[in-house]
């Protein structure tokens, strides 16, 4: 139960440095909170208003009192334990909001003080920091995180010191993410070679009007843009760009890639008949595509979605017979087969 307590003038409710689990509200009389400014050491005296809480932060945070609560004239207070206090204010969000504002002002002030001391030191350049995080993740082959960091860098520092590299590495991250998946493939940073040296085929044309010197062709640029549109779940927008690339016959490699993605869009948009038709066509025209087995997988998935389990299974079986099957795909196919068997 909250406890009313009376104090005589010149008594002390708590000393700075004490540990205490009580929160107080002043009912009458005068109380001063005495502390020293942590910067100048100057004495600070804060008089509590009637109805005001004190001792909140140290009690809730379980750390030592930051000030001494000195009673100036005979005073009466009510003491709460932390749970009692929480119960009280939970019914009154206005009180919490008020305290939140007080605390956030204090926090902002402390934060600014700390930052001003730190900025005298070298290692707090957010521009470089952001860029280095991208590099770190690219080195660790965490391509989607690398892509995120580089893209953020380019958003905030479009003409920054590292914008050329950031632009190139953002595309590298994107390309490797698609090609190898996270955790696999080459680590790009620190190698002198162009990050696209591993991209075979496709005569790189100057990307007129493209955002940077990554050396990607127009089709490639468009393709990666559409892939990120897809990853933002804007499937129909992505689909129309992939269709554009596929019909442009600009860069054979990306035409094939785009064709594959069209099927993926259809499948993701639950157009299973369309996906089956498209991928069947794809498999016939590009039997040497590295995406062949994935295409077959999507055909199987589409049949499975349509409830045609037997047909789905025949595609899965076919994929598994086409050694070598890349590990990730193999797992996906095996999982799909299990789900069919469990469903049966």
């Amino acid at each position, binding site marked *: 139960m909250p406890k009313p307590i009376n104090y005589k003038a010149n008594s002390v409710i708590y000393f700075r440095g004490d540990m205490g689990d009580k929160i107080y509200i002043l009912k009458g009389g005068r109380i001063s909170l005495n502390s020293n400014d942590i910067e100048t050491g100057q004495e600070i005296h804060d008089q509590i208003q009637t109805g005001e809480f004190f001792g909140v*932060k140290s009690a809730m945070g379980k750390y030592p009192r930051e000030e001494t609560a000195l009673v100036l004239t005979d005073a009466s207070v009510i003491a709460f334990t932390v749970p009692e206090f929480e119960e009280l204010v939970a019914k009154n969000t206005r009180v919490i909001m008020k305290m939140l504002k007080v605390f956030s002002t204090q926090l902002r002030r402390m934060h600014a003080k700390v930052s001003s001391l730190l900025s005298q*030191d070298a290692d707090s350049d957010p521009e470089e920091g952001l860029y280095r*995080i991208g590099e770190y993740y690219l080195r660790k082959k965490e391509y989607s995180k690398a892509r995120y960091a580089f893209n953020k860098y380019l958003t905030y520092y479009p003409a920054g010191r590292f914008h050329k590299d950031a632009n190139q590495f953002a595309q590298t991250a994107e390309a490797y993410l698609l090609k190898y998946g996270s955790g696999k493939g080459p680590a790009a940073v620190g190698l002198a070679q162009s990050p696209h040296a591993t991209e075979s085929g496709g005569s790189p044309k100057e990307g007129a009007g493209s955002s940077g010197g990554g050396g990607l062709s127009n089709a490639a640029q468009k393709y990666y843009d559409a892939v990120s549109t897809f990853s933002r779940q804007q499937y129909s927008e992505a689909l129309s760009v992939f269709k554009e690339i596929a019909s442009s016959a600009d860069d054979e490699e990306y035409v094939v890639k785009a064709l594959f993605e069209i099927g993926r869009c259809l499948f993701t948009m639950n157009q299973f008949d369309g996906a089956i038709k498209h991928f069947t066509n794809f498999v016939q025209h590009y039997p040497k595509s590295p995406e062949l087995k994935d295409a077959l997988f999507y055909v199987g998935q589409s049949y499975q979605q349509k409830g045609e389990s037997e047909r789905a299974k025949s595609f899965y079986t076919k994929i598994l017979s086409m050694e070598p099957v890349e590990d990730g795909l193999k797992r996906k196919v095996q999982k799909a087969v299990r789900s069919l068997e469990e469903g049966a």
Partner: protein
Amino acid sequence: MELNSGAFERFAVKFQKGDLIFCEFEPGDSFYLIQQGRVQISKVMGNLEKTIDILQPGEIFGEMAILEEAPRSANAIALDAVKALEFNRENFEILMRGNPQIALKLLKLFTKRVYDQRRRFMILTLDDVSAKVADVFLMLNEMKTPDNLESDERVFHTTPEDVAHWAGISPEKARDVIQHFSSQRRIELLTDRIVVKNINEFVRFVNSRRRQVS
């Protein structure tokens, strides 16, 4: 986290497992309340990524953005498929008004942050680099419950890089100071931990340096 209605659905955002929700140094203007999944808070230091915390549904992160559009101080990564409510300075009062439990949670978080910042400030205002390093160990000591109160010895699972971060000095400098303490046998530096031989001696040392300042 129970919210009183679906009224907050419009603030809901989803992340896939492994997604960066935000990264360190990125300017931030929103904060998050986790509804589903776990969020890892990490910092990249040199060639290492250090996990600072793993947050569960019901917890808040990115809350410093309520104050100002300062760069994020750490990475937030979705450990699972994560659903969170995203708020900013303009709309967070709407959330708080109907949800005293969340407001209280935020209040507690701010309490802790004020203390942490204040404590950090006290380290930074020390003039003497050795005292700064020693005070970092005192701060770390305050944050943990000692395994054995009888003993003056304290074991910290930390690295010179961490100490450098807290002390606001370069890692090389931190290493130098720790080496020096080590040669005086006041500290033992091991690969995975740092042992302070007599924590009370560090308290006296830091206090003596602090008095000179003020």
